[in-house]
């Protein structure tokens, strides 16, 4: 097709015959001109209001790039809107002059990977499918053309207000309009910048078909969680075997006359690990009485002393509600961070009674090595589960953000 003149302003236009131009936008007067068999026809005038017609497209007419194995050249740009919400549809010709599309939504790019009536199938449950992925309805709206530039191998109707439906299954968005499907695949902005040698603004929010890194990584995250828990269990069992049910100390503290009885000594016993956790068990057959043992671990080599106190108390009686008991004749406590060494245990008791109780005559003291206490395992398990819950929460939040502009969001309950 040779150069033609704009029927409106007589400006010279040069349709690209290689792509089979059927519509060209006059760069001078913004008229939309149809071309058929070397004849031109004025299809309409685009608004001259720059606030509406400003294309502000990240890709300009004539920009060349290499996207996903194709050399592409921008031949036309259409800006469409549904009320205050607008987006760009960019026509690009490849090496064979076939036209493909890039859709730009709030700075998010998607390239058309299928165009036709049969791109999307319907399965037995009446769900729409694209490449075995189930598509979910995201939006149903009407759109019209508010601005255009360049040329297109079809007739652009600016008066048409056509209805479309968008279905998504990230990274895909399948748009159904006029009985045709256009399936777009999300392309990261960085890839577009590299492909076309341009610099783009940061995309706004989450693209409707933007892949979620949380979703993409959920299998790996699940595997990490399972492996972490298995490692925790194996380590706990393996190192827990160093703990022993044989008491390091198994002694009885005489409580007949604690005021005038010197501390009793037990041991010695040896702790080999840099730090050891010890479980101290105190028991006494008392009733309506208490005893409190002061326990000191004395390192025989350094004479450093680590001491603690541990007591038991048990009370019982009968009142208007019947018999009652309070306290316990048996107590345990975990003592942590005892350094390696050879230790003696010194024990000294105090006693007391309540009501008609008899003072206890003795208390048993046992010390066990607890090198890998269950509390360590439970804490680590809790942290792993919490971390996993945070991951799931972030995944949920990402999806909720994606669907925040949709009337069909599965994350928002709407009154029917």
């Amino acid at each position, binding site marked *: 097709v040779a150069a033609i003149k704009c029927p409106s302003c007589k400006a010279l236009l040069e349709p690209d015959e290689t792509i089979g131009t059927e519509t060209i936008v006059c760069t001078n007067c913004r008229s939309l001109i149809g071309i058929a068999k070397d004849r031109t026809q004025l299809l309409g005038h685009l608004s001259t209001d720059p606030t509406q017609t400003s294309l502000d497209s990240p890709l300009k007419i004539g920009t060349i790039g290499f996207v996903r194995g194709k050399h592409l050249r921008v031949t036309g740009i259409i800006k469409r809107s549904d009320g205050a919400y607008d987006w760009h549809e960019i026509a690009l010709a490849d090496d064979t002059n076939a036209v493909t599309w890039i859709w730009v939504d709030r700075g998010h790019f998607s390239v058309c990977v299928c165009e036709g009536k049969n791109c999307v199938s319907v399965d037995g449950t009446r769900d729409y499918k694209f490449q075995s992925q189930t598509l979910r309805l995201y939006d149903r709206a009407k759109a019209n053309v508010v601005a255009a530039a360049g040329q297109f191998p079809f007739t652009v109707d600016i008066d048409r207000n056509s209805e479309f439906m968008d279905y998504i299954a990230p990274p895909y968005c399948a748009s159904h309009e006029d009985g045709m499907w256009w399936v777009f695949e999300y392309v990261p902005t960085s890839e577009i910048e590299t492909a076309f040698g341009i610099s783009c603004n940061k995309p706004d929010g989450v693209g409707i078909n933007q892949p979620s890194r949380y979703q993409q990584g959920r299998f790996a*995250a699940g595997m990490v969680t399972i492996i972490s828990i298995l490692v925790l269990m194996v380590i706990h069992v393996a190192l827990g075997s160093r703990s022993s049910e044989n008491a390091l100390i198994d002694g009885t503290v005489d409580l007949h006359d604690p005021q005038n009885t010197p501390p009793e000594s037990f041991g010695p016993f040896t702790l080999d690990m840099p*730090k050891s956790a010890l479980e101290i068990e105190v028991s006494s057959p008392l009733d309506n009485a208490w005893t409190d043992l002061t326990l000191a*671990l004395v390192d025989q080599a350094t004479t450093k*002393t680590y001491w*603690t106190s541990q007591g038991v108390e048990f009370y019982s009686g009968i009142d208007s509600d019947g018999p009652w008991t309070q306290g316990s004749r048996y107590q345990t406590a975990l*003592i942590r961070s005892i350094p390696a060494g050879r230790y003696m245990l010194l024990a000294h008791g105090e006693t007391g009674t309540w009501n008609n109780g008899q003072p206890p005559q003795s208390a048993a003291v046992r010390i066990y090595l607890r090198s890998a206490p269950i*509390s360590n395992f439970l804490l680590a398990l809790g942290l792993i589960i919490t971390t996993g819950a945070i991951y799931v929460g972030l995944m949920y939040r990402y999806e909720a953000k994606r669907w925040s502009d949709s009337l069909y969001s599965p994350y928002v309950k709407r009154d029917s």
Partner: protein
Amino acid sequence: VKQFKKNGAVVIYGATCAVIVGLFVLADFTGYAVFGETPFGEKPDAQHTIIMRFHK
């Protein structure tokens, strides 16, 4: 493995889990109990003085 290479979220998640497991292994290996009563140590007070006096 692919998911680890290009997915920051999974890398951070994996690193967090690794740190938790590592700290757990370190604690169990050295015999450190995260929970539990810390011994009162060498700081003398009335009871400690009494028991040590008897001991001497």
